[in-house]
């Protein structure tokens, strides 16, 4: 088949965007986990379910908005995102209080207990929202594509997610590395005893860190409703991908997660273009595992002493 130069340019541009779009989705999903795992060494197997919690919150807001008239269905998402964060944040706090704080010295056990939590949450979603997958109506300003040239279509919802990812990432980085609270978090992780001794309430630091991670997962879930549907078991689809992003990035740092999400997303997206989705996925996973075997600490070594 012959393609004109213009065709190839257009496809390259769109393919580049597809990779970036996948990158922002992956990063948004992994960010919450990176906070929890990276800072607290807690494995949260219910991470996917916290995303679904955010997604269902968005769905509820959209359903309520539908009753208020057309202006509400257009802009409900602006309210849904903070609410998704809030619901996941509060629920995360509750879980930390009831469960996680008892398990800090047993990372493998947290993994198992949060899996149990994931099962309970899944059934909770099913009992409340039904087994059928739901998808909130997309506001019309998020539908369709932006067409800079007749050849190129850039999905608007993809751009919206990208913008959201940038905002959330900057917010998290600011919180962790620029704010006083972040300083407390990092000092607690470096030395719990010393931090407690200088008057940091380490218990609250733990609780807020965990809740923050869950809240960010909630935002990811809200964003996800723009591109896919939500069902009670949707969360399990994302576990493996999200964990690999964090582990591959080297658990200690947010920047590691960003780089790793970028590499994995671009890699998989390019492979998909040439190999098809199934083989691309297998190849990506194998490459990640192979690299992890050579560099078990991930791309960026954690500077925190364990």
């Amino acid at each position, binding site marked *: 088949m012959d393609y004109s130069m213009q065709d190839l340019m257009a496809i390259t541009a769109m393919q580049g965007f597809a990779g970036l779009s996948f990158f922002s989705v992956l990063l948004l999903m992994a960010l919450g986990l990176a906070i929890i795992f990276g800072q607290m060494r807690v494995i949260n197997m219910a991470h996917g379910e916290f995303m679904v919690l955010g997604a269902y919150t968005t769905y509820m807001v959209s359903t309520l908005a539908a009753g208020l008239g057309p202006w509400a269905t257009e802009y409900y998402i602006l309210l849904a995102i903070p609410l998704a964060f809030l619901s996941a944040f509060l629920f995360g706090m509750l879980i930390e209080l009831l469960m996680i704080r008892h398990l800090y*010295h047993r990372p*493998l*056990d947290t993994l198992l207990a949060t899996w149990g939590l994931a099962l309970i949450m899944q059934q909770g979603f099913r009992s409340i929202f039904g087994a059928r997958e739901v998808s909130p109506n997309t506001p019309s300003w998020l539908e369709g594509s932006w067409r800079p040239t007749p050849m190129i279509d850039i999905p608007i919802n993809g751009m919206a997610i990208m913008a959201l990812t940038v905002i959330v990432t900057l917010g998290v980085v600011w919180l962790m590395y620029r704010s006083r609270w972040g300083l407390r978090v990092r000092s607690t992780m470096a030395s719990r005893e010393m931090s407690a001794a200088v008057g940091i309430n380490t218990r609250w630091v733990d609780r807020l860190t965990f809740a923050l991670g869950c809240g960010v997962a909630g935002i990811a879930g809200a964003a996800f409703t723009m591109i896919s549907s939500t069902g009670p078991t949707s969360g*399990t689809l994302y*576990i*493996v991908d999200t964990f690999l992003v964090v*582990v591959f990035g080297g658990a200690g740092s947010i920047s590691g997660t960003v780089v790793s999400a970028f590499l994995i997303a671009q890699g998989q997206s390019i492979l998909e273009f040439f190999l098809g989705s199934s083989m691309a996925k*297998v190849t990506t*996973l194998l490459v990640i595992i192979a690299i992890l075997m050579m560099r*078990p600490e991930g791309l960026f070594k954690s500077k925190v002493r364990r």
Partner: protein
Amino acid sequence: MNNALQMLLGKKGLPGLLILAFILLVLFPLTMDVDSLNLTGRFLAFAFVAVGLVLAWGYGGLLSLGQGLFFGIGGYAMAMYLKLEASTPEATAIQTTPGIPDFMDWNQITALPWFWEPFHSLTFTVLAILTLPALFAAFIGFALFTRRVSGVFFAIITQAMVTIATILVIGQQGYTGGVNGITDLRTLKGWDIHTDQALVVFYFATVVLLFAVIALGMWVLSTKYGRILMATRDQENRIRYSGYSVAYFKIFIFALAGFMSGIGGAMFTLQVGFMSPSIIGIIPSIEFVIFAAVGGRLSLLGAVYGSLLVGYARVTFAEAFPQLWLFLIGAVFIAVVMFAPYGLAGLYNTHVRPRVEAFLVRMGWRPGAPPSDTPRAIDPQAAQEARK
């Protein structure tokens, strides 16, 4: 009683083993019809994996979320043999290429792939079931443990491997039967595997093999090797500085767990009559861990009880209250991890056993206070805390 023998028989000792043998070999066969026995046999096939997890996770500290992989290798090896036996040129005469499994024919494969060839031989198949899962586990273990991958990293990598395996099995349906799996298995050396008689035989074979595997596990733990393994779990660096090559201990125990899982998989295929990727994926792989955790991560016998209990709870409770089932199993899992990390076996040891012993002493059936050389339950949590 000398110490080695006591270790061999586990903390519960001989009575525990005898009670389980009585339940599985006498009580169940006498009280159950063939279908229930077959169901029990399926749960027992999962128990092989759980026993392996007790060794790898409970004693070795290696939490694998990918045991479905090894279960699957064993199960698929068995299924490949049975499928070839069922695909005689006569039975498959309507196919474009008679003599190959039907699903290959549907996928335009015109000759048996090379890796299917050896599965014409039962001897090879049995050898494959006994060696492939162990070798594969050893390979993974070698790659990971010599690089000191451990803990949650190990758990996540094994989980990713299961994901890869399922995508491959489903995607390469011409060679694997895809999402339907390898179905319509009929005979084993000409002997119909679906008759009542066959199902009973498979049940007893499963039980006998399961006891063999448990005995093997007990023996391994009783050796010096077993002690070093436990010490490694609790104080890895100290063992390393003592001059032991820690990685090889881990590789061995992981391979052993894989070996056990493979046997379980093969027995599963025989009893169910097919093998499919839905049995080896991420979720079944985590369920194996649930079995081991409920039974007690330090108890080989507990793993069997855990598999049976969760299995039966699923078929009875889930059917009566489908809405509540996930709540229940999730809550049980959380409760076990938080309040009874050593599972049923742990609860038995701390709550029931002292009373039983006191009762036995009071009745005069056992001489006074238990001997002081009874091995004390090793508590990794306490050990870990001590390290901190």
